[in-house]
């Protein structure tokens, strides 16, 4: 688990740009002695320091995609059973016609984090006393990249899939070596 104090956090009302800076800062400060994996998300806190959402790398990428009637129509096409190849060719056509320009980034950095964050579901919280086995079930069945670790009402850290995978990997290796 990564303690919450070492994790990247921003407050409601902050922008996507501030979230990216917070992530960069947390990555610089992070102690990589026990794990080679970088932080990949930012937690969003309310005024009472309660976690209200999570902004993942996927969330950031999703936020910067141009959103207008035409792009919406292109994305909507996948629902109708067209191939990825065709949908991609339409995206390319749009990109050539409209341009995927710096303006997109200029607009994106001003987006408020609460407009692009993912709110957390009940299945994304895990009590600090939960066994690693059970936490693995929770990650796998919910297809989550991390779980929020709680102690009563307090959030104390993040259990990242990369760290869980690291622990499992070491266990598998030591198992093989002892046999």
């Amino acid at each position, binding site marked *: 688990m990564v303690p919450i104090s070492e994790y990247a956090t921003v407050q409601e009302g902050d922008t996507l740009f501030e979230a990216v800076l917070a992530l960069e800062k947390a990555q610089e400060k992070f102690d990589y002695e026990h794990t080679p994996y970088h932080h990949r998300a930012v937690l969003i806190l309310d005024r009472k320091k309660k976690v209200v959402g999570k902004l993942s790398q996927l969330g950031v990428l999703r936020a910067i995609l141009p959103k207008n009637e035409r792009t919406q*129509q292109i994305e909507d*096409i996948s629902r*109708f*059973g*067209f191939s990825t190849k*065709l949908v991609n060719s339409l995206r390319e056509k749009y990109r050539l016609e409209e341009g995927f320009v710096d303006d997109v980034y200029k607009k994106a950095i001003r987006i408020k984090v609460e407009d692009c964050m993912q709110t957390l579901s009940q299945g994304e919280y895990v009590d600090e006393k939960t066994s690693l086995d059970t936490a693995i079930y929770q990650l796998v069945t919910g297809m989550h990249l991390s779980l929020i670790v709680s102690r009563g009402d307090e959030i104390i850290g993040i259990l990242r899939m990369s760290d869980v995978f690291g622990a499992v990997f070491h266990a598998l290796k030591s198992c093989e070596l002892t046999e």
Partner: protein
Amino acid sequence: MQVLEKLLDRIIQRVNINLRELGFDVTPYVHELAALNQMVKFYAFYGITPQHPINFQFMHSNLAGSYFLGRCRVTNSLLYKSDIRGDELKKKGAVFRFKQYEIPITRDEEIDIEDSLLIKTLVHCYSHDPESLEKFFIKDTIAMHYANIHGSPSDGCFLAPFSTVDLTTMHDCVVGEFSYIQAGEISHIKIDPGTVWIRSPEKFNFLYRFDSRQLENYIKFIPGSKPKGLLFDFVEDKKKDFERIFSLVNIETPRSVPVSATLDRYAVIKPHTKISDNVLVAQRAYLKNSWLGKGANAQENCYIINSRLEGCDVTAHGGKIIEADLGTKVFVGFNSFLRGSQDARLTIGKDSIVMPHTIIDISSPLNIPPGHIIWGLIRNEKDLKTNSLPIREFSGIETDFSIGNMIFEGSGSSFVSGFKDRIDHILDSNGAFFNGSENKGHAQKNQRISFNMIQPYPMGELKGLFPSITIQP
């Protein structure tokens, strides 16, 4: 009336439960529009012919102004001015072919409508669901004005006005106004208004989407109010003509109708209309000052005004043709609206295919050459360039093609041959190729038909409800 109100509330709740995953509440769309007062006023009627097995079972339902043919069961439902046409249902002993399967039909198929509200809706064809061969079910479903449920079993769905679901099984879906879906099977999906989607997995996929702002001129349906727009106004304007023919007990068939043709007594025929051999004019069709050449047909809710159809033209359910000249074997798909004017006639060359839910609305003359396939919204020559192709060119598509608001993927030749085969099948089953002794179809078989009426309770606790009744041979 309490009994009808309870029935309506029950239907709304059942549909809402099915659509909860989509977050769609039908209540505001339906509650004020289901004219329960009107439902007490009209009789229902059913047809008897030697050709169609009958087994009508009506239970705890209102059937005001609705028509039934073939084997139909209606339970806990409200059907207002709808056509339940079971003259193409599968018969015992037939074989249903689906992919590599050949499945024998063990009993005559029936249309089974339960816990549903259908307003001015057409139900026709047979169940194309390989999992439900002997039962064409419509369950927990609401279909609004001029919707078509064509060979499409439905469970837990909402169909907005002028929508069509064709040869597709639906579960828990919302189909927006003026959308046409032919996709085999769909579930848990909300289709936006003005979507024309035709898909045959592994073969082809066609998608056209109307611009929502342009479509609103023709049809707009917002919660709490009646449908609005040119399409709705057009049909509502002709309502009085239909009221007159429905109020008369006996109507003589005009002598000018050939013996090989059928003119339904519930069709409106205005002066100067020519009906040729092998023509089929279905109930609720409207013809005025028009020429229908040999083998042409006008199906339910069709309007053909000041127009000439040379012969073997198919005007599918809900098609409207005004001030137009159609060459031979032109197919006009479901709910299409083709409107020329006296000074701006529309001409469509022979062997052309007007795709379902096409709107052609012109203010200058427009000439579409023979052998074209046409779709979408066309108001002038410029629109025609992005909404049509010569059929030969369309057949040549091998991977994908997009133009205007249309996207196509797959084999163009499969798509075109699918349409052509279907047009031939329609002409054949409608009797267009009858030669005096062979190839009889609906135009010949539906001539000797007796109509019987049933009426609802006029007052009392059961006011508006039709008596539960079973009618068998």
